[in-house]
C-alpha cells in the first residue's frame, strides 16, 4: 500500500478531533473523504500532510513512517493541492509551478535549467503548456486548479492531497477537473480528496472514507459505503441513492436528498 493510516488520532492541542482513523490507498486509487462540516476532514488532511502532529497512531507512506521524515523528504512523497487561490503578486504560471521544486534544490540556490524543464514537463502533462508565460492571477479558477496540479506533479510526490478541489468551480470546470483527477489516477498517482458531494466517489473514486465526528463511519468501495442508510446516519437527513443509465448507457449513481412532504423540518429548528 502506498498510503496507510493506522488508528490516527490528532487535533489542535485541546483534545483530539480525529479519533482513530484507519484507511489505506494505493497507486492509482482516488480516496474520497466524505462527511458533514466539522467531521474532521480538514484536520485529517493536516495530519496526513504533517502540518499538525498526530497524537497517536501512525501514517505510513511508501513504507516510511511520516514521523521519521523531514519536511523535505515528506514533500517528495506527498503534495498538497489547495483550492485555487489568488496570490497577492502576479506570478507567471511557470513561477508558480517551479515553486513545487523547492524541496529539490538547496536553499542557497535559485531554480536551474533542470527545474525549469521539470516545470514545463509538468505543465505538458496537464495540457497547460500554452499557459506557461501567462500571469497566474489572470487565469480562470479551473485553469488555476490545473496549474496547482502541475505544481504537485513537479514536486514529484506520489500522493496528492486535494481539499474540496471542486468547491469553487463552475459546472463545466468541475467536470473537467474530475476527468483530470481520473487521468492522474490512471498515471499511477494516489489522490486523496475531500468532497461535499457524495456522488463524487462514484464518478472518480475507487475508495470512500465516510467520516462522522472524527471517526470512521465507513471505508471501502463506493458501492458498499455510499448507501442510503449510511448517508442518513452521517448527514442526518433522508437520502436516496439512485442508479441510472445515461445516454451512452453508462451506469451513473446519484444521491438525492429527499423529505417527507408531511414533515416541516424548519419548524423543528425554531
Amino acid at each position: 500500500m502506498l498510503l496507510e493510516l493506522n488508528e490516527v488520532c490528532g487535533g489542535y492541542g485541546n483534545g483530539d478531533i480525529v479519533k482513530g482513523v484507519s484507511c489505506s490507498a494505493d497507486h492509482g486509487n482516488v480516496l474520497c473523504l466524505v462527511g458533514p462540516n466539522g467531521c474532521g476532514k480538514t484536520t485529517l488532511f493536516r495530519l496526513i500532510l504533517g502540518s499538525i502532529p498526530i497524537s497517536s497512531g501512525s501514517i505510513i507512506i511508501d513504507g516510511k513512517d511520516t514521523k521519521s521524515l523531514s519536511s523535505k523528504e515528506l514533500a517528495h512523497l506527498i503534495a498538497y493541492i489547495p483550492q485555487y487561490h489568488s496570490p497577492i503578486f502576479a506570478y507567471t504560471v511557470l513561477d508558480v509551478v517551479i515553486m513545487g521544486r523547492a524541496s529539490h534544490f538547496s536553499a542557497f540556490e535559485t531554480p536551474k535549467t533542470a527545474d525549469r524543464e521539470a516545470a514545463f514537463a509538468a505543465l505538458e502533462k496537464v495540457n497547460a503548456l500554452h499557459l506557461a508565460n501567462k500571469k497566474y492571477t489572470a487565469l480562470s479558477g479551473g485553469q488555476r486548479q490545473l496549474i496547482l496540479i502541475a505544481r504537485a506533479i513537479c514536486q514529484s510526490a506520489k500522493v496528492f492531497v486535494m481539499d474540496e478541489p471542486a468547491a469553487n468551480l463552475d459546472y463545466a470546470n468541475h467536470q473537467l477537473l474530475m476527468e483530470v483527477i481520473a487521468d492522474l489516477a490512471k498515471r499511477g498517482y494516489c489522490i486523496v480528496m475531500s468532497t461535499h458531494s457524495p456522488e463524487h466517489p462514484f464518478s472518480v473514486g475507487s475508495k470512500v472514507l465516510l467520516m462522522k465526528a472524527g471517526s470512521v463511519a465507513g471505508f471501502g468501495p463506493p458501492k458498499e459505503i455510499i448507501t442510503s442508510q449510511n448517508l442518513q446516519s452521517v448527514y442526518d437527513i433522508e437520502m436516496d441513492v439512485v442508479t441510472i443509465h445515461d445516454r451512452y448507457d453508462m451506469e451513473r449513481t446519484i444521491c438525492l436528498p429527499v423529505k417527507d412532504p408531511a414533515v416541516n423540518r424548519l419548524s423543528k429548528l425554531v
Partner: protein
Amino acid sequence: MNSTHIEIKNEAVQRRRCRLLLAGMLILLFAVVLLSFYIGYYPLSPSQVIKAFLSRFGYEGEILPQAVTIFWSIRLPRILSAVFIGASLSVAGSTYQGMFRNPLVSPDILGVSSGASLGAAFAILNGASNWVVQISAFAGGVTAVAATYLISRKSAHSHTLSLVLTGSMIMSLCNAGVTMIKYVADPNDVLQQITFWLMGSLTKTDMDAFKWSAVPMVVGLALIFIFRWQINLLTLDEEEAKSLGINIRRYRMIFIIASTLLSAASVCLGGLIGWVGLMIPHLARALVGVDYGRLIPASAMLGAGYLVLMDDIARSVLSMELPLGVVTSIMGAPFFIYLIIKRKERV
C-alpha cells in the same frame, strides 16, 4: 518533451530580457554615482574629480587640495551611504512585502524605525556624542523588532497577523516615547537636534560612520540575496508553503533579522528616510516581474540609484540643503499615486 515549444522559447527570451534589464540597471547606477561627484555646493570639474580619485593611487600631478578633501571625505562617504541606504531600504521593503503578503508594507512594519528614533532621541536628550547617538539608534531599532517578534510568538493568531499587530503596538509605544522626549527637551538646542535627526539627512555622514553601518548592511543584504528565491514561498499560505517542504518559520526569522539589520543601520546612518522601501519594490516589479530571484537584485540597484539621485537633488536644488527625508516624500508620493492609478495589472 518538445523543447522547441513556442512558450519555452518565449520564456527563454523573457529571461534574457530580464538579465539585460538588470545589467542596464547596474550601468545606470554607476552612471548616477559617477555624476554625483560633480554635484554639490563646491563645483568640481570632471578632470578635477578624476585627478582627486587618482590621488590616492599614486597620482602626483597638480591638483587642488580642496578637490581631494571634497572627493574623499565629503562626497564619497555621502554617495556610498546613499547607495547602501537606498539598496538596504528597498531590499528590506521587497522582503517584507512578500513575507507579509501585502504590497503596501514598508520596512518599518515591525517598529524598527520607531525604535531607532526613540533610541536616538533618548541619546540626544542625554547629550551623547554623534556615534553614541548612532549606536543607540541601532540598538533601539533592533530592540523594538526583537520585542515585536518575541511578543507575537505568544499570540494565538496566525504568525504574520500577530507580528503586524504587535509591530503597530510597539511602533505607537516608541512614538509616544519620542513625543515625550521632544516635549521635555530644551527647544533651543536639544529639540532642534532631535527634529533634525528625525528628518533624515546625509549631511553628517563621514567615512567612519559609513564603515560601521556598512557591516550590518552587508550582512543583511547578503543573507537576503542568498535566500532570495525562498521569499517566493513565503508569499504562499503557510500550510501550502510547508507542504512544499520548507521550514517557513526559520526563513521568516532569517528575513526578519536581515531586514532589521538593514533598516536599523539605514536609520542610524541617515535618519528617517521614508517611501524608498515602499516605492522601489513596486518599480522593480513593474520592470522585472514578481519573482524574487530577480526582484531582490533589481530592488537593490534601483533603490541605490534612486536615493543617490534624491540626495543629489537635496544638496543642489536650493542654496541651502534640503532634508533628504523630505525630498524622498515629496518625490515619492506623486510617483506612488501614479503607479496606483496607471498600472492596470496587479502589482
